[in-house]
């Protein structure tokens, strides 16, 4: 993808990603507050636990007598408290993590809807789906463990250091020095590993999208006889993924090792230092033991962060993709009145529309001016790639015109109006899509709550009623996998039925005759003629059969309207339309007679 951000700029932006993820977490009240509170309480309980444990051992060790009972109770109490706090903390962070991910996913989904089919078509579907599912799930550990570990590291070590300084400053000094050193190492290695992690995420995501392709295209692969090769392709891409990930982990785990090492050595330092001072008689056994017991607890948050560091990186890598999606601009002008659209046919006026697909130099349509009066039938003809479909996508609001505007009933259509606008459109696209559900369910999406008679009437008008009744369960026959069990012509007719049911102010048909046989085609021309006046009707046809009765014919050529007028007018002009028509007539004549 040409606009894909390069890796280097992504890793530069990863601090930014973390900031946005933090801000998102801060959106949930008490996420940070409660985490901090639980951390602080945990710290206090740990200090009490270790202090009582050291007292117990020390008394037994030095006095060789049973220590006081109250110490056992204190220890048991603190153990209970500690377990309870750990329980609460885990439960709380996990539940919040669920909530945070869920809102993030909803935001991203809404964004994808706003960006529209054009974006979904250029990005790999599997990629977007992967991002919204696995991608968001990658943040599970980020919010469950990584951020709480960060909070913990801010709370526990300072509290413990304060306490240790108060009791025994030389030990406190060791903690004070080693703590920041560990953080420094962590940062050093982390910044390097982050870049690799970004690469890995992208490779994994494209791996997922490749799978969807490989599965959906299995039939084509089989017919081409290369489905075996595809297995090798999957194996080699999985292997590449493994090698890449292992390369990253070698570094990522190194940071974990440095942390562990620093923590272990520090604990050993505390132990040896305490031991020497014990020999010298400079400190008592109990304070020494207490230092030794507390030291591992002091380094535990660092080790925990080291363990979750990987999760943090993975999360932020996935999130930066997610934010890249969320940052796609799709805003347009939003000033002015919303157009008034009702049940009656709407008038449409296009003024200087221009659109260029991303990554293309030439605009697909330019300087498009046309008026589609309410209730009129407009036919659009022109060669492949002349901008006809782009024009309907602009009308649908699936593409946002770079320049110019569309007026509906006199008022300009704003981005915020598209949703309502589409509610008044009946649309038959080049590739009609059918959703999982019965035939009836699919038809009803066009107008929820329509009566059975109305649905059947629409199906009859579209010439779909007959074949629907022949299906195993009639209108209740389930359609799956984009209705792949239907033939091309049946799909087309079902799509027309769906559009007729909508009873929209506008009817847009994009190549409705592309895979219909002459009989159905003729029948459909009838349907369009009969609906004339009920909708503002726009028909794109590669064949000229259905356009004869149009009030106005727009002839597209190279992104512009080359000619317009009624059939008779255009014939008289003897321009492109005439050319087109005579060629078609010649074609059929040549083999007909």
């Amino acid at each position, binding site marked *: 993808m040409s606009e894909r951000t390069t890796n280097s700029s992504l890793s530069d932006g990863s601090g930014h990603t973390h900031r946005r993820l933090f801000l998102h977490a801060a959106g949930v009240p008490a996420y940070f507050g409660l985490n901090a509170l639980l951390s602080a309480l945990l710290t206090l309980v740990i200090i009490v636990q270790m202090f009582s*444990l050291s007292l*117990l051992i020390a008394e037994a*060790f030095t006095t060789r007598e049973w220590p006081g009972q109250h110490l056992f109770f204190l*220890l*048991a109490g603190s153990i*209970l408290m500690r*377990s309870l706090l750990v*329980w609460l903390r885990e439960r709380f962070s*996990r539940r919040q993590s*669920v909530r945070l991910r*869920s809102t993030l996913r*909803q935001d991203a989904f809404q964004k994808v*809807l706003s960006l529209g089919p054009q974006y*979904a078509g250029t990005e790999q579907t599997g990629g*977007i789906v*992967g991002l919204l599912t696995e991608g968001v799930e990658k943040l599970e550990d980020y919010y469950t463990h990584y951020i709480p570990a960060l909070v913990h590291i801010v709370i526990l070590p300072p509290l413990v250091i304060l306490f240790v300084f108060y009791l025994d400053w030389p030990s406190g000094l060791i903690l004070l020095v080693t703590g920041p050193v560990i953080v420094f190492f962590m940062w050093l290695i982390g910044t390097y590993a982050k870049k690799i992690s970004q690469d890995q995420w992208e490779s994994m995501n494209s791996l997922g999208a*490749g799978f*969807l392709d*490989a*599965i*959906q295209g299995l*039939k084509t*692969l089989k*017919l081409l*006889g*290369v489905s075996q*090769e595809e297995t090798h392709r999957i194996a080699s891409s999985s292997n590449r993924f*493994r090698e890449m990930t292992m390369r990253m982990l070698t570094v990522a*785990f190194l940071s974990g*090792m440095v942390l*562990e090492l620093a923590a272990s050595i520090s*604990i*050993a330092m505390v132990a040896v230092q305490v*031991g*020497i001072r*014990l*020999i010298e008689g400079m400190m008592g056994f109990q304070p020494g*033991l207490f230092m*030794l017991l507390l030291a591992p607890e002091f380094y535990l948050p660092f080790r925990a962060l080291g363990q979750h560091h990987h999760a943090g990186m993975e999360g932020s890598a996935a999130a930066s993709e997610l934010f890249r999606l969320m940052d796609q601009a799709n805003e347009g002008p939003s000033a002015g009145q919303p157009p008034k659209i009702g049940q009656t046919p709407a008038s449409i006026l296009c003024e200087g529309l221009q659109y260029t697909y991303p990554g293309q130099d030439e605009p697909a349509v330019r300087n498009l001016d046309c008026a589609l009066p309410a209730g009129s039938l407009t036919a659009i003809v022109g*060669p492949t*790639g002349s901008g006809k479909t782009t024009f309907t996508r602009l009308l649908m609001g699936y593409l946002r015109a770079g320049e110019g505007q569309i007026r509906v009933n006199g008022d300009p259509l704003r981005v915020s109006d598209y949703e309502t606008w589409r509610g008044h459109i009946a649309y038959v696209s080049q590739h*009609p899509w*059918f*959703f*999982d559900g019965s035939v009836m369910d699919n038809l009803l999406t066009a107008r929820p709550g329509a009566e059975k008679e109305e649905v059947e009437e629409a199906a009859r008008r579209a010439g779909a009623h007959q074949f629907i009744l022949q299906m*195993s369960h009639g209108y209740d026959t389930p359609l799956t*996998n*984009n209705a792949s069990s239907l033939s*091309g*012509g*049946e799909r087309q007719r079902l799509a027309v039925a769906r559009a007729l049911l909508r009873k929209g102010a506008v009817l847009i048909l994009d*190549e409705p005759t592309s895979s219909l046989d*002459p009989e159905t*085609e003729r029948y459909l021309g009838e349907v369009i003629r009969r609906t004339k006046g009920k909708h503002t009707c726009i028909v794109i046809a590669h*064949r000229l059969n259905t356009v004869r009765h149009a009030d106005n014919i727009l002839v597209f050529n190279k992104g512009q309207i080359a000619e317009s007028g009624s059939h008779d007018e255009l014939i008289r002009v003897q321009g492109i339309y005439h050319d*087109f028509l005579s*060629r078609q007539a010649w*074609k059929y004549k040549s*083999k*007909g007679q």
Partner: protein
Amino acid sequence: MTGRLITYLKVHKGKSLLAILLACGTVLAGMGLMGFSGHLISRAAERPMLVDLFMITAAVRFFGISRAVVRYFERLVSHDLTFRILLHIRTSFYRQLNRFSHKWMMSKKPGELLTAMISDIESLQNAYLRIIAPVIVSFLICCITFVLLLLFDGWLAFAVLLFFLLNGLLVPFLALKRARGGGVKERRARGKMKGFLVEKIQGMHDALWLEGRERLIHQMETIQEQLDEVQRHHANSSGMVEGLNQLLANLAALVALLLIIPLVLGGQIQATMLAALVLGVLSSFEALQALSSAFVHYDGFRASANSLHQLTKAGEPPAGPKQPAVKPLGDHPHLAFRQVSFSYDTTRQTLRDVSFELPPGSRTAILGPTGSGKTTLLNLLTGLWPAGSGQVCADGHSIDELDMTSYRELLAVLSQDTFIFNRTVRENLLMARPGASDGELEDALNEVGLSFLAGKLDWSVGSQGMKLSGGERQLFAMARALLKRSRIWLFDELSANMDVATERKILDTLWSKLHDRTLVMISHRLVDMDRMDQILVLRDGKVAERGSHQTLLESNEHYARMLQHQMQLIQDKV
């Protein structure tokens, strides 16, 4: 499930063993570090000579360093192992998928398959790291700790063992019980979400005007809530497990302390060992931490494993003497339909008693209205679906007896739903002729009139070729067919989505390239019919008429009527 996973582990025996040894080493080093540290300061408190402590301080340092290093390698080895297992499962799954009939594939949603392939397989890869390894490591550490403590005191050893068992068996049991059914539910919710997203994103151009943003968002929220509910339940289980882990480890240390104090007071155990033993016991429970939390997810692993298994089992080709007797076939066989009947489901007979011959070099057109069975003919001819009754033959052999891959190599098929992959132009074309030079690819593109792609072989054509227009995709598929060195061309609705001028051009290309190839053209339009050797008109799954253009015109039946319809459409206008 475990059985199948262990099969995968067996392939990587050495690595698995190493990973487990390293994991045990990590825990043992931790026990050593804490134990010797406790011992060190206890000894130091007795104020001996500094040299007497030399061995102990060295041990403390040794264990401190080795814990970090061993842990590093343990993580590397076990992750590498995980990925190798992953690769194994993935490819064997796809290979299986490849063997399945097209019929079975059609009944599955691609979204569902993708969930299976990615999520389930990924979940299974974790099963090793999260379940199998922790179980073995816990068991080993438990044994080692028990034996070590036996050296000091039997009661002590049994008491700690009891806590080990509580933590290693009871907590996982509780976790398992709480999570029961959760894994299946979570899987279902995830699958549903994925299916929903695949469908609504691929079909967004229709979803947006039909259902509208608000309804889509609402549907998504409902699905999300189902997933959230399961995950919240998991959150509670995980919290419980973590808390209990913490509680049992610390209680074990407390009980150990209670048991050791009398022994120290009685002189059976040296006083310096008191701190060492308590700290050692506390550290040994590190082995169990991973174990119990794994069982929160056990149900999920099992659900994934089961569904993968079911998916592959369900699609298994029917058992029987399916070993294809590889019949020798020339590169240009004589194809034939012999009394073929077929139905996709029980209620609708799609083809009835269809017979025809396709001699080498013949040109056949198959005509008929929508739904008359034209495309089904193609599906049977290419062996995607097995014939219901009757035979599809190549050189007299039923194609069921042939090796499908080499049979299909003889065919160049252009179907209505030819899939264009989200890869580069080159990769898409190379599928048809692996190893073709760039020049050959460019020639093919030029011939079909896609010269603008010839200079852009590295250009990616977008998801399902969506960066191309409908007509261009058709031309692209034609380029693929031209590239394939096949003597039999099967074209289904070649000129759909094309304007008249392009259709003329592509047909001219076709005729000029055809030479002595066999051509089967399925169409609903009557174009260039006079160049066909035979024309079959299908109606309601039966061959209603057959003959040449001339004879069919003369008989003045279906074909003549179709032609008349088509002419009328033109005459209406001109």
